């Protein structure tokens, strides 16, 4: 017995604390949805009863525009006949400054996505392994193990891993409420700051995502100014994740923190940093183009040295440089993307309106923040989880429950809409319609129903037990956007 314990302890000691712990965040029970999708993915022809993926925030609506450009510009590849003479220079290029034309093109693109109201300096563009790598790098630069970042809730679950796992940094939630549209108030910021202080967590910065994931809202000028002022006063950093900058549609306009700092007198710019990526705006998550843009020279310097751990492939830098320098293409792409996002969003919201399902008013992002509070048995997260399991297993939609985003109130769900075609959206809406009408049936008085109705249980109150025969696959984890995700139906339908 003793030797078994010793051996097990020895095995545990073989890996680091970081590797043997749960900091990667993938052991959460929220992966049930992904697993269900993985086991039975929807396909309009092969699997019409499969689970529809609405938990993946990907922008797949303009792939055709992109592909057309790529086919038309073989010189953008260093491998085609037209581009081959550049092959060896690019293949050996591992300078962590990145290709100058890449940085210039990205800076220009960032300007365009902010309606050309600000200028970005290509020399401040630092590469990283996607926004995932960018966030970790920023945390390494700005905070020591044990320090904390304030993060308004609800927030992207990946932050728990990206900002904390290997860095040892803490995340301190800034609670936002539906009563005021989840606005980030100074009161909430002060309360969180104080709480951190009481817990002996030195606060080093505030991280906000604008446009917001999962809310889809953008911050107005006043709010942005208040965030800059708050962080400046406290002498803490402000990190703006602007990964969804170009996904605004409709009336709302995206205001970048870059714009706001120009309007604030005596703003300490050494505290201002932007995280960006081409994964959402351009729909290119596979190419791993992450950017750290800091107004602090020392941070630029250090982040650049750290970028050695996650440089963008020079082959990709070359392609992106060519693509984003084609201003006509970029303008067309952004315009088309916004139109299509608006249309798909409208389709979903019109459908939900017709069913009396509420959603947070927002005009950005690749998702909707859906309000199902009135469907909860009790206003608890247990009830939310129960409802969620029903949505996955009976309605067969993989949506993301608010609890996984650290939302303060149960009953909210994030529903992605930009990773599917029109027909799939129709199917999803039809399933929701069927589900809500079943619920209506169940709430009718017993006397007026038939015997069949008597036997019907409230579907979302059934004791649904999830059975996972394959524990290994569960442990492998599915939550990370980098976990094995079979091609979305949109893509599969095309191939």
């Amino acid at each position, binding site marked *: 017995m003793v030797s078994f314990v010793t051996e097990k302890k020895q095995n545990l000691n073989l890996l680091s604390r970081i590797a043997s712990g749960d900091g990667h965040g993938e052991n959460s029970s929220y992966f049930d949805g992904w697993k269900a999708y993985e086991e039975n993915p929807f396909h309009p022809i092969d699997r019409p009863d499969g689970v529809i993926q609405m938990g993946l925030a990907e922008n797949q609506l303009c792939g055709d525009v992109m592909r057309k450009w790529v086919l038309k510009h073989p010189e953008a590849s260093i491998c085609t006949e037209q581009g081959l003479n550049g092959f060896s220079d690019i293949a050996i290029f*591992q300078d962590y400054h990145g290709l100058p034309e890449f940085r210039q093109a990205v800076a220009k693109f960032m300007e365009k996505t902010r309606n050309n109201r600000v200028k970005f300096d290509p020399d401040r563009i630092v590469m990283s392994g996607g926004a995932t790598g960018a966030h970790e790098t920023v945390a390494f630069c700005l905070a020591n193990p044990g320090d904390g970042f304030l993060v308004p809730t609800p927030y992207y679950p990946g932050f728990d891993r990206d900002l904390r796992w290997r860095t040892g940094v803490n995340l301190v939630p800034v609670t936002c409420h539906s009563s005021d549209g989840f606005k980030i108030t100074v009161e909430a910021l002060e309360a969180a700051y104080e709480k951190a202080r009481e817990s002996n967590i030195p606060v080093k910065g505030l991280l906000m995502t604008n446009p917001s994931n999962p809310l889809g809202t953008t911050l107005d000028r006043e709010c942005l100014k208040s965030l800059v002022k708050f962080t400046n006063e406290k002498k803490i950093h402000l990190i703006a994740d602007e990964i969804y900058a170009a996904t605004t549609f409709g009336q709302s306009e995206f205001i970048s923190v870059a714009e706001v700092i120009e309007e604030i007198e005596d703003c300490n710019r050494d505290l201002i940093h932007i995280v960006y990526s081409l994964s959402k705006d351009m729909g290119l998550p*596979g190419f791993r183009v992450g950017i750290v843009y800091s107004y602090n020279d020392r941070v630029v310097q250090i982040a650049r040295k750290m970028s050695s751990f996650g440089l963008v492939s020079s082959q990709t830098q070359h392609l992106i440089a060519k693509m984003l320098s084609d201003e006509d293409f970029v303008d067309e792409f952004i315009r088309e993307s916004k139109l299509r996002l608006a249309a798909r969003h409208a389709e979903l919201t019109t459908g939900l309106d017709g069913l009396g399902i509420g959603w947070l008013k927002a005009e950005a992002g690749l998702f909707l923040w859906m309000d199902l509070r009135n469907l909860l048995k009790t206003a608890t997260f247990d009830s939310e989880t129960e409802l969620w399991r029903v949505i996955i297993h009976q309605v067969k939609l993989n949506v993301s429950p608010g609890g996984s985003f650290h939302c303060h109130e149960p009953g909210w769900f994030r529903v992605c809409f930009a990773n599917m075609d029109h027909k799939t959206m129709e199917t999803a809406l039809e399933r929701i319609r069927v589900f809500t009408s079943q619920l209506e049936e169940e709430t009718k008085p017993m006397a007026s129903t038939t015997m069949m109705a008597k036997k019907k249980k409230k579907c979302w109150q059934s004791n649904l037990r999830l059975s996972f025969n394959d524990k290994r696959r569960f442990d492998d984890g599915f939550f990370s956007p980098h976990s094995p995700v079979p091609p979305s139906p949109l893509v599969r339908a095309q191939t």
Partner: protein
Amino acid sequence: MVLLSRKATCNSHGQDSSYFLGWEEYEKNPYDVIKNPQGIIQMGLAENQLCFDLLESWLEQNQDAACFKQDGQSIFRELALFQDYHGLSSFKNALADFMSENRGNRVSFDSNNLVLTAGATSANETLMFCLADPGDAFLIPTPYYPGFDRDLKWRTGVEIVPIQCSSTNGFQITKLALEEAYEQAKKLDLNVKGILITNPSNPLGTTTTRTELNILFDFISKHKNIHLVSDEIYSGTVFNSSEFVSVMEILKNNKLENTDVFNRVHIVYSLSKDLGLPGFRVGAIYSNDKDVISAATKMSSFGLVSSQTQYLLSSLLSDKKFTKNYLRENQNRLKNRQRKLVSGLEAIGIKCLDESNAGLFCWVDMRHLLGSKTFDAEMDLWKKIVYQVKLNISPGSSCHCVEPGWFRVCFANMSEETLKLALKRLKKFVDDETSKRSCQKSESQRLKGSRKKKITNISNWVFRLSFQDREADER
């Protein structure tokens, strides 16, 4: 004053070392045969530029792969969306096969045990995060690649304790040196988590011998908490593959598959050296321990390989005819180029490390050119070589060598003409130095003689001496 993290304000990124300073000098005044023929020739960069023609001709003949096409259809969209941290399976399979081929197919690799990372830089750091806690130590034989100081220590908080190797036995790892390093770590109150070797070695340009590998395996068999990481990034640069013994081979030949040692041996690989594609950021970790694979896979999110690059390389490496020919040609060209450097240096009276049979560089013995057997003298010599001779080579001290006077000189990142020019410049320098020394020697002998004479007017004597001295120089 804005507060940044300790990592941001310290110097652990290691970039203040002379290794990087030489690079900076080169950047300011780079040699170009037409535009800047007097510029500094870069011999501090371990890059393989000898086989681009083979890659380019493959691309010309395989345009589908080059244009994101599969069976004539564009798969751009699928690639653009592919961010699965398990990697493209066709690429991992091809990579696993390529790694086997590099080892003469004496061992086989399972693609499920491969984790893709953004270059070996990321692979090494990720392994440290997986195997060691902050304050733990890894033992590394000196001299070693200067980048390890950043890659292994900076953000991980891991310490490096050197295993001191010396020229007395060609810088091979000895049991004594290993044990001394282990004791030293204990004295410093550091918990040793592993040993990291580079095989073939950077900067030595030699393959690790079976004897050395057996010493290492004996050690980790005895110390059951210690890992062995073998950075085999130069495996394809061995001039004769039969001379390369991978740690995987030792596991197989010594039948260690069912022992605990099996799970504690890990390989780091990359396509930056063998294929000459450092810009593409293709690195890999290979381990038989599923927990290491699981943790490293999740960590690879911080530095995945671009799907565009994975797809191109999966086609390239799946072409077995190409890989067979490439590996052979690469080895031959490297061998020939190395021989040219070695013989060129010999003609100047400079020796390279014996038995060097791999790598993109030579470990060169310039101890006889030092003013004194000190690292200060090594720095003086290095500065002369960079600023006067205009060659950027890497001083041994930047590689943590215990003996001054050794330099790493790269040969695979330039044309043959450039190499000849570099040798010519070096010859001139050595000739000048030699004649300076013989002048100084005869001068000091003269000084000894004149002191014996009775001299009343010291200033006259000094004047006469210096006049004679000048005359001697003009000759």
